[in-house]
């Protein structure tokens, strides 16, 4: 039942950057609207709150805010939708959600946008985390 709700397929082509932006906002809204059911499925009530999850989602979107190619944005949206589907239909487990989205947000060395900057890539991914 939750899987059929999430049949929000991203059609392959965004005509322009503006359309891609609209898709991003719609994806964000869909994700935010499914936050209550996510919290219920994985019983996250005592570790986090809906507004924190909202800001986690928006920070993930912001990580790719510098992209200008609509096709790349489509691809990222597809992956985001896929991730959201997996979470909503309970294909993941609580520790996945906690490790990826709830805990240790401050400890990660966030990329400032430009992914090839300075230090060794291997180390950067290593510090980032396992997930």
């Amino acid at each position, binding site marked *: 039942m939750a899987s059929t*709700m999430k*049949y929000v*397929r991203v059609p392959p082509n965004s005509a322009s950057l503006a359309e891609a932006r609209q898709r991003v*906002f719609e994806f*964000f*809204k869909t994700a935010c609207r499914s936050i209550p059911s996510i919290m219920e499925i994985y019983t996250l009530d005592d570790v986090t709150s809906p*507004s924190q999850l909202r*800001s986690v989602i928006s920070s993930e979107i912001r990580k790719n805010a510098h992209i200008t190619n609509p096709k790349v944005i489509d691809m990222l949206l597809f992956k985001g939708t896929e991730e959201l589907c997996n979470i909503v239909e309970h294909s993941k487990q609580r520790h996945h959600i906690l490790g990826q989205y709830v805990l240790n947000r401050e400890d990660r060395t966030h990329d400032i946008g430009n992914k090839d900057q300075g230090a060794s890539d291997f180390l950067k991914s290593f510090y980032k985390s396992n997930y």
Partner: protein
Amino acid sequence: MASFTASSVSFSAVSCSFKQNKVSSLGKASLSFSGNGSSSRRLPALRFRVSCAAKPETVNKVVEIVRKQLALPNDRDVSGESKFATLGADSLDTVEIVMGLEEEFGISVEEESAQSITTVQDAADLIEKLLEKK
């Protein structure tokens, strides 16, 4: 809701062999959207709020949410007329604020209305209108 209708339009263009799926998914989708647990839980509390909600109160709540979202210091003046852009919010911030308001007031903002929100006052007016409709 708006985003789903947009996607169902594109779905119909795909193929008629999927008609079965489409119909059943539409039916199930409407169920799961209306079954949004937290909003239905919040309705009883809303009834009280509607009867005694004055406009300044709504505006204050909106200001509070905006302040928290944009992490503004307390001395930064946020009034009804402040535009989100001047407060340092980009478009994703605006959407996030609208979603925060949706959650706080238990309303659901339509796509077109969300586009037109530029100031704090706009948001408060839209909220009042949606609360009245209930």
